[in-house]
């Protein structure tokens, strides 16, 4: 019995020590890891929109609670003037959820650019959205708030040939972005001021 107790104690002490050490390490590296994750996962999408930004939008970010979710907003500074944010929304594509990064000019509420972060679309058809700049450019300059639709559904966006579902999903995601933006617009404007390149 003594031996058993000793065994359990050693096991418990060791495992909780390990938990403590790892917890501490996790705390210490959490921020950097988040940065890394965002940089590698969202980074390429953000960079493709904010090509001319002065700052590193991945590092300069803030988060807000939208509905029940925490959402990251990436701030882009142009000429020392924080004027745009980008954030991610999701919509169901052909192969599951598709992530779309939407960048908005906070002063004019117009879309600056749209890019895809994660998707699971059919290679060669829907997946061409990664590189199809012509399709994505259609959103630039449009007001963020409001419904975005492809032409078949009575909207203004020309769908990618053969990839209507993917195109629709993109529109849907952008529309959702509009909803979110509308909800937290004032908070975004407050927060953005803190970033001055």
């Amino acid at each position, binding site marked *: 019995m003594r031996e058993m107790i000793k065994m359990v104690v*050693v096991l418990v002490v*060791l495992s909780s020590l390990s938990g403590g*050490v*790892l917890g501490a390490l996790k705390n210490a*590296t959490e921020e950097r890891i988040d940065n890394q994750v965002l*940089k590698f996962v969202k980074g390429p999408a953000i960079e493709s929109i904010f090509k001319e930004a002065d700052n590193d939008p991945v590092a300069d970010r803030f988060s807000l609670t939208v509905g029940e979710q925490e959402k990251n907003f990436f701030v882009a500074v142009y000429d020392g003037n924080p004027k745009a944010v980008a954030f991610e929304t999701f919509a169901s594509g052909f192969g599951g959820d598709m992530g779309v990064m939407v960048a908005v000019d906070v002063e004019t509420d117009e879309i600056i650019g749209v890019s895809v972060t994660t998707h699971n679309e059919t290679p060669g058809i829907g997946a061409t959205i990664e590189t199809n700049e012509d399709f994505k450019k259609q959103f630039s300059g449009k007001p963020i708030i409001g419904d975005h639709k492809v032409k078949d559904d009575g909207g203004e966006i020309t769908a990618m040939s053969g990839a209507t579902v993917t195109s629709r999903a993109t529109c849907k995601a952008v529309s959702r972005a509009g909803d979110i933006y509308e909800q937290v617009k004032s908070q975004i404007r407050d927060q953005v001021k803190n970033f001055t390149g």
Partner: protein
Amino acid sequence: MAKTIGQEFVKGLWEEIPPFRLVLGLCPTLAVTKSVENGIGMGVATTFVLVCANMLVSILSGVIPSKIRIACFIIIIATFVTVVELMMQAYAYQLFLNLGIFIPLIVVNCIVLGRSEAFASKNKLVPSLADGLGIGLGYTLSLTVISAVRESLGTGKLMGAQVFPSSFEPFAFMVEAPGAFICLGLLLCIMNIIGKK
């Protein structure tokens, strides 16, 4: 036990070099050796875990009851694996993505557990360190060699530089699973020929 620290270190590089002499740790060996970069990364990660686990085990070997020693070793190893996982996420995210689930799987790599049990639990700190370092570097070396063979034959490139003339048609299958098995089998055969006295 007449071995000096130097010998403990060197044996891992030739006499007991895994996975050739010690036929262990095959899964990561096969899985991550598609490119030299990944091979080295995996090797270094394993070395780190090996060295740390060896050191800690040799320090704690007096305290751990023998019946649950395996469980304790597993906790120690898992802790260090998690450390590697976190650090890699923080500082080498691309590698983290490439190696994928094989990082957490270092914990079930028999080499690590085997060295803890077979060597570190019975030896002092310094020899354990030398042993861990030796075996770890040996493993890294093997992984590098295997991945160099596979990458150069499979893609015609090595670390991004073209090693074969462009007229060379890469054996695409070398970077696939069958190539991994066959390549390792043949390298093992070569080692057997060299090792035969």
